[in-house]
């Protein structure tokens, strides 16, 4: 009778099921473990709200638009943090997305077969490097290069734009954006590759059959089919860039101010929490930081949910698609 209980979802006729005590205990233990996950998420949201309760009651929604961050006067406003988070992530994507999509398309369509596995391997290695290591490398290797060569060049060539004016310190919004781009590329590459692999070969073959070159077949048949999945991959990368803490803290300059220049220091939500949390003295300071954490959590949840919906739409039901998630 227990033979009916295979792993596939079925309706069981209760009279025909015989559950020994062992089965019941086993299922009970598994259910307890499984229930733990939604409980954990609910708990996470609950603790965030609880911790930020004081700041929410004192500042309300004005917290999101105010720019004052004064621990001594107990006035806190997160707008520079939110702005810095969005700008650094947007810049990082502007750098990372063309490169990542290019690499993903190359690896799935044009690369010689022997190159594909090692390249995928290297991408996974890049994704495994811890954030602090990127930050360490960023401080001592990337920033000197940027400060001495790249930034002055940008200022000479594009200095008429307000983005490239102003003094060059080294730690800046642009440095943080560059390291974020390096960190986010492996994720976008990996997911894009899975999404492109999920495109049915019939699409490619149809285009080739109509006389397209390989490049034209990719651009006109494969990429448009996978478009929502690729956008989903980009948005997943955005979600990661928004939450990235350590490397950004070490490279962004940590200043609660909005500046037009990309060479000026900035701040992000995650970096502010990382820097100030263990040194905050007053309850309202800690509560404000918890409020920032809550906002960050809500932003990343919404963006990640949107991304997964898009990826699911393009790779519905395919094996490669489900692996992409």
């Amino acid at each position, binding site marked *: 009778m*227990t033979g009916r209980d295979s792993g596939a979802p079925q309706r069981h006729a209760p009279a025909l099921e015989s559950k020994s005590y062992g089965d019941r205990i*086993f299922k009970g233990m598994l259910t307890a473990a499984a229930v733990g996950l939604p409980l*954990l998420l609910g708990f996470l949201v609950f603790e965030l709200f609880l911790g930020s309760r004081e700041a929410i009651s004192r500042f309300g929604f004005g917290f999101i638009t105010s720019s004052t961050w004064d621990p001594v006067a107990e006035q806190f406003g997160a707008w520079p943090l939110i702005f810095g988070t969005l700008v650094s992530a947007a810049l990082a994507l502007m750098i990372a997305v063309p490169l990542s999509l290019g690499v993903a*398309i190359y690896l799935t369509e044009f690369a010689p077969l022997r190159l594909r596995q090692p390249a995928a391997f290297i991408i996974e290695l890049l994704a495994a490097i*811890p954030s602090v290591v990127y930050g360490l490398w960023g401080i001592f*290797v990337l920033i000197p290069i940027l400060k001495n060569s790249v930034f002055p060049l940008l200022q000479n060539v594009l200095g008429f734009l307000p983005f490239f004016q102003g003094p060059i310190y080294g730690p800046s919004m642009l440095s943080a954006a560059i390291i974020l781009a390096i960190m986010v590329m492996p994720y976008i590459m990996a997911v894009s590759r899975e999404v492109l692999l999920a495109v049915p070969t019939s699409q490619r073959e149809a285009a080739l059959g109509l006389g397209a070159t390989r*490049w034209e077949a990719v651009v006109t048949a494969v990429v448009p089919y996978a478009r929502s999945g690729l956008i989903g991959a980009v948005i997943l990368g955005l979600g990661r860039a928004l939450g990235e803490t350590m490397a950004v803290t070490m490279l962004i300059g940590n200043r609660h101010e909005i500046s037009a220049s990309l060479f000026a220091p900035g701040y992000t939500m995650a970096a502010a929490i990382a820097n100030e949390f263990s040194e905050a003295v007053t309850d309202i300071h800690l509560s404000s930081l918890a409020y920032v954490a809550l906002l*960050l959590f809500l932003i990343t949840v919404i963006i990640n949910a949107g991304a997964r919906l898009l990826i699911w739409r393009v790779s519905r039901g395919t094996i490669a698609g489900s692996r992409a998630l």
Partner: protein
Amino acid sequence: MVVVLASAVVVAVVPLVFILGTLIIKGAGSLNAMFFVAAAAPAGQTGGGVGHAIVGTLVIVGMACLIGLPFGIGAGIYAAEYPGTRLAVGCRFVADVMSGTPSIVVGVVAWAWIVARQGHFSAYAGSVALAMLMIPMVMRTTEEMIKLVPHSLREAALALGYPRWRATLTVVLRTALPGIVTGTLLAVARIAGETAPLLFTALGNQYFSLDVSRPMAALPLVVFTYATGPYQEWHRLAWATALVLIIVVLVLSLAARLATRQRYPRS
């Protein structure tokens, strides 16, 4: 056009080579016996090591595994064995949401739950934060690996008279075990390198300590503190520690990937 794309690959690979190369050049020279065994020297003085951080990472990550693995693997088995139920669907959704959560937010939650209520930092608060990061990862990989086990194996065991729990434990789990171990190793590699959740839970410590109710050192914390500190000596140690950390993380990740690749080759 293809040349443009190929050069994009080069641009993507260059940072990895650059980073690994810099780490080896700047860090390898500092790796001696004392580095691995000694605790931190007083600030600014030469010498000292990161033995206390190695022990600390082992303790904190070990405890995180003890907390996180039962929940993660249990939930994964449930989701694979009873896939249509609302709890399984809910679990998958929750795991997806939580895997996208920034690690600093998880650190704040662990702080609010444990550190704020107790009034002091502790290593187990750090472990709880890392476990919260680990559970969704392990749950997803466990579920995927169990789903790969052919139904015929399960049905054969049931046909031979095994009760359901025994069929799952001795046949299905044993078959999926290499994959589950792989998923666990990958999750361990990921949380071993996490700094943000530990910043205000385990806090860090300059001395050897096995007291889990007090602050404890960890390798990523040492890298962060020393890299942003003012002393040249600290910078030198930061490079070496980062090299050790990255070797550990990469070896774990490589071993995990290689094991699965042999068993379940992908096209």
